[in-house]
Structures are given as structure tokens and as C-alpha cells.
């Protein structure tokens, strides 16, 4: 497999995530799209790790290519923490404004 295929796939998923953030008004859907972006990045990282696994330096040490996958692991950790806090905030917002429409978050106006 060519690395370029994985790069392309990851980019497509990433931009779909961005488009989702720009197009939707529901805060939760926007959050979902953020998760999609994170996953696109994870995929790319794993692909890179396998790419390095094929390079000559990998023959030297056994665990040369594992760093990227550890990184993915930690991204998942952070994503989990972030989701819990983020959803708590959204619930707070819902309690106050009774909607999750982001157009109502205009306290920064002027």
C-alpha cells in the first residue's frame, strides 16, 4: 500500500469533519465532528508507524515503529477526558438556555 492513499483518506475524513463543524448548528454534532477529526489523525499516525516499520532503521531495534501507536493511545486518552468535560459543559448550557443551538452563544457580541 502506498502511503499516499492513507494520507488522502485521512485528509478526506479530516475535511469532512471540518465541514461538519462549519455547517451544523447543533453543539453536540459539532463535538462529534471534532471526534471524527481526531480519528482521522489517529489513522494517519498508525499508517506512518507502519511506514517507518518498513524503513531500514527498523531492522535495528525491535520496537522502532511503536512510538506512533503509543501516541495514538494517548490521543484516545485525552479525547476521552475531553469528551466528558465537554459534555458536562453542554449539559450546563442546556440547563441555562434550554437549547444547544450555538447561535445563542453570542455573549461576545460587540
Amino acid at each position, binding site marked *: 500500500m502506498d502511503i499516499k492513499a492513507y494520507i488522502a483518506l485521512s485528509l478526506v475524513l479530516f475535511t469532512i469533519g471540518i465541514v461538519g463543524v462549519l455547517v451544523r448548528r447543533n453543539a453536540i*454534532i459539532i463535538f*462529534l465532528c471534532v471526534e471524527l477529526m481526531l480519528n482521522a489523525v489517529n489513522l494517519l499516525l498508525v499508517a506512518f508507524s*507502519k511506514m517507518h516499520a518498513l524503513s531500514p532503521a527498523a531492522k535495528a531495534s525491535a520496537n522502532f515503529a511503536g512510538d506512533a501507536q503509543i501516541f495514538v493511545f494517548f490521543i484516545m486518552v485525552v479525547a476521552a477526558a475531553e469528551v466528558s468535560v465537554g459534555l458536562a459543559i453542554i449539559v450546563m448550557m442546556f440547563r441555562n438556555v434550554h437549547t444547544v443551538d450555538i447561535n445563542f452563544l453570542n455573549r461576545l457580541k460587540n
Partner: protein
Amino acid sequence: MNISTIVFLLLSLMAVGSALMMIISKNPVHSVLWLILVFFAISGHYILLNAQFLAVVNIIVYAGAIMVLFLFVVMLMNLNADTEPIKNYRMQLVGICTGGTLLLLLVLITNRMDVEQLVETNAGNAGLIKNLGMVLFKQYVLPFEISSVLFLSAMIGAVVIGRKEEPIDQNPNS
């Protein structure tokens, strides 16, 4: 065209299609479900790359826990297709165009690389849980421990934010 390529293409199609459906569908519950499908596709990619540990962890953590949490919140707020706010048509167009431009740009940028690297599929030691564990607990043990602190702070933060406010004391003399 060997079987890896075919599987790769199928999985990619599934991923992209589900992602598109996710951002298109009006019902938030549907969106969450479509995203779960995307995760499955991505886990499929991981398996193709022989990143076994990550494939499984992806399903368990992401699809299993995080998406369930999302579903809880969506159900809590009783969101459905009728109450879903829709953005202004023009702004949607702008968003799509911007995203399209970004995609085009990034593809152009990455295409300039003269790399003809190949990716190891179906085989390889890198993704095996034994090897990953060695790397994790030897070189990255400090971040591992600190991530526990991160979780702790996240938990406390979530609880504090989600608390109901206490009623203000009405009688000043007591």
C-alpha cells in the same frame, strides 16, 4: 490488485460514506450512529495494518464508551429531527466551499512530496500488544502515570461543572 487493496478500498468507502451521512443527517441520534460506523471502519483499517491493540481499544473506548456517553446526552435533551436547528443556506455553502478549498490545498501540498513509501500491511511486529506494552511501560511510563492525573482532573471537572447550584441564603442574620 491484491486483496489488501480491495479491502482497503472497501473500508475507505465505508468510512467516508458514513462520515458524510453523519454530517448530513438531521436526527442527532442518527448522526451518532453513523459515527459509530465510521469508528468500525477505522478499526478495520487498524486491523489491516496489524495494529491489533489499537483496533480493539478504538472499539472499546471510542465506539463503546464515548459514543454511548454522547447518546446519553442526546437522549437527555430529547433532541430529534424536528427541533434540529438548521444553518443559513448561504453559510452552509460557504462552509462547504471553505472545506473543499482546504481539502484541495492539503492534497496539493502532500502530493508534492516525492515519497514513494510503502506501508506494511497484514504483518509486522509493531502493533502487537506485547511490543506496545514494552514501549509503553519502558519509555512512556511517565506520561502514562500523568494521564491518570488527567483523568482525575477531568472527573472532578465534570462533576463540578455538572452540579446544580445551591440556593442562596435568604436570611442574612443567621
